[in-house]
């Protein structure tokens, strides 16, 4: 056992961080939301994919991370993916990153990241809200197989749908101003079946893992921002971070992020073991670990966003300070790839 991140994993995370640092991030104080091809949304911000950032990250190989080297990918595992996605979360990178990375091993022609893939989980029924629809080249839909009643594992399939064939209306004001939303009038009926229930379950599981890693990034970066502010802002003649009420909020933020990261890393390692069919590989245990990671990371991201806003006082509530972007993204992601209750149910089945 050596549960420390390897030098290569840290280097990969560092390379991603460097690229992200060269682009504007919606959470940075005073920055407007970036993006070139999204609709105008929010208070003067522009939503959608930052195309230049997408291109740079694609060049780094982040979409083909788990695609074999013969097929043009990097041939790495989940343990590497979660390092990348934590960085994306820290920078609040906006776009269908998760879905495109998930689709790459399935559709290796997408490993380069030249095409953007969306993924929509429609197993729980309406509302049918799609993210980044205008920016997508392909849409994967996870649907309940006709005639099956339940949104439970083993009853779904994966469809590949052409985005332009969908009848959808833009939502005028998505809560997360960086992520354009469309509402489908009806479920996509036409599409090519490209995966069975096992594929569907694996996609949703891996999506939950990457989302948990992204949420951990949000939780971690907000801890750092809150701590930096608490050191610098003075009231009553002392730094507010010396007040125990504030210090203890920061300590809880740190503990939440650390625990979420440990859970995410454990789940990634267990999923890799399962995929490589190593001794002791145990898919149910890995699946429970993913659910645990998603639960804790969602909690950490949302709670830390609230705490960061609280620690910034009135400034925390302003559009300018940018903290609201993190809270909104954390809310949205906690409803993606399984809500807390769904993951709790998955865990409880295994107990």
């Amino acid at each position: 056992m050596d549960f420390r991140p390897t030098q290569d994993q840290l280097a990969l995370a560092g390379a991603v961080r460097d690229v992200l640092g060269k682009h504007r991030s919606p959470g940075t104080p005073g920055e407007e939301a970036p993006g070139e091809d999204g609709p105008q949304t929010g208070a003067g911000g522009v939503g959608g994919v930052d195309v230049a950032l997408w291109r740079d990250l694609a060049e780094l190989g982040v979409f083909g991370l788990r695609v074999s080297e013969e097929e043009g990918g990097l041939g790495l595992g989940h343990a590497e993916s979660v390092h990348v996605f934590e960085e994306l979360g820290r920078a609040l990178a906006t776009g269908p990153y998760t879905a495109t990375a998930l689709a790459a091993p399935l559709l290796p022609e997408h490993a380069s990241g030249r095409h953007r893939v969306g993924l929509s989980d429609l197993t729980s029924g309406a509302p049918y809200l799609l993210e980044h629809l205008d920016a997508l080249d392909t849409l994967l839909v996870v649907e309940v197989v006709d005639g099956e009643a339940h949104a439970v594992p083993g009853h779904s399939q994966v469809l590949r749908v052409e985005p332009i064939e969908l009848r959808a209306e833009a939502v005028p004001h998505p809560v997360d101003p960086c992520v354009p939303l469309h509402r489908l009038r009806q479920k996509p009926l036409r599409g090519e079946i490209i995966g069975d229930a096992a594929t569907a379950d694996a996609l949703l599981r891996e999506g939950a893992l990457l989302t948990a890693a992204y949420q951990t990034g949000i939780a971690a970066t907000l801890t750092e921002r809150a701590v930096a502010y608490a050191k610098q802002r003075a009231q009553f003649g002392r730094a507010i971070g010396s007040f125990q009420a504030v210090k203890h909020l920061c300590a809880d933020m740190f503990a939440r992020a650390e625990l979420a990261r440990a859970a995410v890393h454990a789940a990634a390692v267990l999923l890799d073991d399962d995929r490589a069919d190593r001794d002791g590989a145990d898919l149910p245990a890995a699946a429970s670990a993913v659910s645990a990671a998603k639960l804790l990371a969602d909690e950490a991201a949302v709670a830390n966003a609230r705490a960061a806003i609280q620690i910034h006082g009135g400034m925390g509530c302003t559009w300018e300070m940018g903290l609201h972007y993190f809270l909104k993204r954390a809310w949205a992601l906690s409803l993606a790839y399984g809500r807390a209750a769904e993951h709790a149910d998955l865990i409880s089945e295994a107990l």
Partner: protein
Amino acid sequence: MQLRDTPAQQRFREELRAWLEAVLPTLDRPPSQDDWQARRAYDSHWQALLYQAGYAGLNWPAEYGGRGATPTEHLIFLEESELAGAPYVGVNFVGLLHAGPTLIAEASPEQRERHIPAILRGDEIWCQGFSEPDAGSDLAALRTRAVRDGDHYVVTGRKIWTSHAEVADFCELLVRTGPADGPKHQGITWLIMPMDTAGITLRPLMTAGGSTEFSEMILEDVRIPVANRVGAEGDGWRIAMVTFAFERGTGFVSEVVWARRRLVEIAALARENGTWEDSETRRRIARLAAEFDALWALVKRNVSQAEHCADGIPGPGSSVFKLRFSEARQHLDDLHAEVRGRESLAFDDEHHTYDGEPGYERLRSLAYTIAAGTSQIQRTIIGERILGLPKEPTAARNAAAASAVSAPGAKGGGR
């Protein structure tokens, strides 16, 4: 980044499993928890068995009779022992987790020779005389006086919450040798106090769970040889701090395994008695399972780090573990009571072993957020030592600041 055993670790695990499987059935039932002499005998017997099999002081250096095992092997030992239902360290807690490591790090060769093998064999029981009625979280405020008289220190004062004092042979005692009004972290000295010395009076205190596991210890002119001092006079605070990290780092580790197993039992009980049908109860159980799994992952992260750093001392990251584990542990016992319903009001433990009895565990868990540094103190440690937030003003720091900058018009901190 991986969680698999190496071939050597796998071998170690298998050997240990086989040994536990053979030896555990030979143990008697644990004694009543009120019978301290029997508990001492039981725990010492277990320690002697570990010693004979080469598992005592697993992570201690081989030159001191330990096995020089890596932190990971130690973790495997704790995990497998817990899974097999082996006894806890019990009354050997202070000796093995606190006094022993301190002596290895700081004591003279004679002191080591005298105590370390005896601790390892289970022949010598230790207790910890740190806390005082007026020095708990603020341990450095301790006032028990030690006055030099020839080859002895003459010690007078009061200690409290001294666990296992009634059965202990020795006490790691923190005393004040410096002036009472000096800087409080200086002038503290670490002494080895034989518990049969004249002048020690024990007054047992009872916990909310009905256990008399700790005492108030009154010291009146207790003569302790100067040769029993560990480290330099006045250096006791630093020496005590070295071992706190060990206590927080590994003291609770096997309990995560216990808690996770307990959760499976609670789930089984809930399925049996119908409370499982309540989705809120079910999800709270699942939420706690996620928490304990993550805590276990955090332990592995901390252990992997300790394995690859020079001193092997757990870092302040153990405060995160202590904080979250102790709170989760209390949720666990509450949830158990909820699933048991009115059954949780009845103690049905005719032998008073209290071993795992849920009502007793629930009361015992009250101490988790208090002992070994309260949750508030852990949050302050995380805030100041990990995150680097400024320290709170204290009376001493205020005075220092006031004399340093007596700037006119400075505000008084809003009080």
